[in-house]
């Protein structure tokens, strides 16, 4: 299998760090090792590198540099945003509104806050995965202190009506946080225009290094600290900074937002070709999520009569990296809460496949993935008792 083809179509899980980004990071591991909090020249250079990266992140989302705080990634940013604002505003109210399809970094943090005495409303979504703004309006009470709705979903790629949500929150004087981990680099974002008060981002989703992210906190927003210790990040987030990671994040976000439109248009065209082929040439297949308001690289489909983990194993055998919402791959026995929330029956959720295309994918990758996918689906259907029953039923009806 030395020369086996391999195709990576799991860009929503993570991306390869851009070689240019790696180059920019390297000096900050070796000769530029100064602790940014120290006084001498070597340290000041590290400090400057961090501030340059901060400006790049701020520019990318239309914020001010002093509104950007570096973290260890999307999960920390989400925890900080929710826990930090909830406790800071506790005297004002104890009600939080979120959606039923958030990433676990939000969902499990909300469950923790419920244990701490907060009350959380989980907004339902329609069959495309969008919340209804009417539901949001009617969920708001005098005690509502925070609304947290993700920008774009990591499983089905559905993009939320963020602008409308921001407008409603602004009118009501309620903080609006958005988990934009999947959106950065795919959708242009201006936190001013969208009335976003807090925004989480994570570098490894847009060709930057893992374990580094940021939280945008609009000036004036009251938020408690989450990581306690030294005075880094203007006394808001303690711990010696991950200088190479932060430099990498800055370089990556600058590059990905510079070429955003071109890149996402190219990926969308490629995605649509693969998606259309899957839907038209593999029978008993459905698209999960919104047809157009979805991340450019996202395909999420369900194949009837088969189970997703076994499909992933066959694709993996062919050198293809993909993902599924089937329980059987996740170590739990329940299928994805996102797929159930958009109304899929559990057995259809078990048969789901997520392919997320990225920058390096080509038409040739599409051809290969389509051919292998079709074979794999046919092979699993041939051994499925559900498919056998379907065929029998059909032959009786003709």
């Amino acid at each position, binding site marked *: 299998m030395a020369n086996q083809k391999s195709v990576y179509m799991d860009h929503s899980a993570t991306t390869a760090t851009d070689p240019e980004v790696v180059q920019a990071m390297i000096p900050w591991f070796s000769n530029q090792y100064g602790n940014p909090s120290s006084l001498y020249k070597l340290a000041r250079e590290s400090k400057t590198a961090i501030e340059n990266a901060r400006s790049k992140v701020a520019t990318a989302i239309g914020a001010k540099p002093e509104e950007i705080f570096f973290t260890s990634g999307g999960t920390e940013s989400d925890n900080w945003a929710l826990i930090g604002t909830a406790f800071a505003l506790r005297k004002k109210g104890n009600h939080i509104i979120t959606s039923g399809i958030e990433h676990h970094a939000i969902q499990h943090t909300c469950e923790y806050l419920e244990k701490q005495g907060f009350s959380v409303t989980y907004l339902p979504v329609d069959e495309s995965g969008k919340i209804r703004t009417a539901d949001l309006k009617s969920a708001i009470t005098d005690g509502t202190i925070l609304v947290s709705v993700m920008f774009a979903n990591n499983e089905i790629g559905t993009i939320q009506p963020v602008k409308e949500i921001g407008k409603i929150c602004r009118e009501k004087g309620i903080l609006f946080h958005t988990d934009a981990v999947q959106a950065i680099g795919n959708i242009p974002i201006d936190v001013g225009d969208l009335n976003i008060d807090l925004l989480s981002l994570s570098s490894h989703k847009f060709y930057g290094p893992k374990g580094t992210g940021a939280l945008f906190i609009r000036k004036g927003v009251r938020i408690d600290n989450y990581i306690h210790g030294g005075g880094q990040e203007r006394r808001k987030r303690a711990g010696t900074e991950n200088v190479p990671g932060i430099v990498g994040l800055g370089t990556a976000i600058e590059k990905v937002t510079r070429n955003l439109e071109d890149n996402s248009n190219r990926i969308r065209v490629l995605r649509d070709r693969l998606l259309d082929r899957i839907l038209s040439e593999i029978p008993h297949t459905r698209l999960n999520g919104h047809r157009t308001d979805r991340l450019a690289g996202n395909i999420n489909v369900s194949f009837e*009569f*088969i*189970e997703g*983990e*076994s499909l992933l*194993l066959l694709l993996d*055998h062919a050198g293809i990296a993909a993902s599924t919402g*089937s*329980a*059987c*791959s996740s*170590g739990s*026995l*329940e*299928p994805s809460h996102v797929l159930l929330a958009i109304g899929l*029956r*559990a*057995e259809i959720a*078990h048969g789901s496949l997520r392919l997320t295309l990225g920058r390096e994918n080509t038409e040739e990758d599409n051809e290969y993935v389509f051919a292998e996918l079709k074979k794999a689906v046919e092979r699993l259907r*041939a*051994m*499925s*008792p*559900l*498919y*056998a029953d379907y065929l029998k039923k059909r032959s009786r009806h003709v």
Partner: protein
Amino acid sequence: MYSEKVMDHFMNPRNQGEITDADGVGEVGNPTCGDIMRIFLSVKENIITDVKFQTFGCGAAVASSSMATELIKGKTLEEAWEVSNKAVAEALEGLPPIKMHCSVLAEEGIHKAINDYRIKQGLPPWEEKAGHHHGHDDGTCET
């Protein structure tokens, strides 16, 4: 995550298919939980002369079905009845803890198929171990 043996039986399943005039058929599992196994038996003079399976499920479910059919082929019904889920898992060189229920499903599938045969022959069914499979009628999927 899976042993080489599991991957071998998943990639090259033994005895996959259907016996249209089977002497006994057993079906276990639930699509909601993500796995269904159907076992077909041909029996001559108390011996399992042929066995086939159809499975909807994960890699471990397919491999467990394949291995279980291998273990009972050519055996007497009494011998086949004694093939435990542990024996299936061991023959597969182990299953991840979360996947052990797949081997349980295989054992239960064999028991159902044998009892289907016995009932069709006018014999009383043997007593099946009660309810250690993951829930089917109550809509939950806990093991």
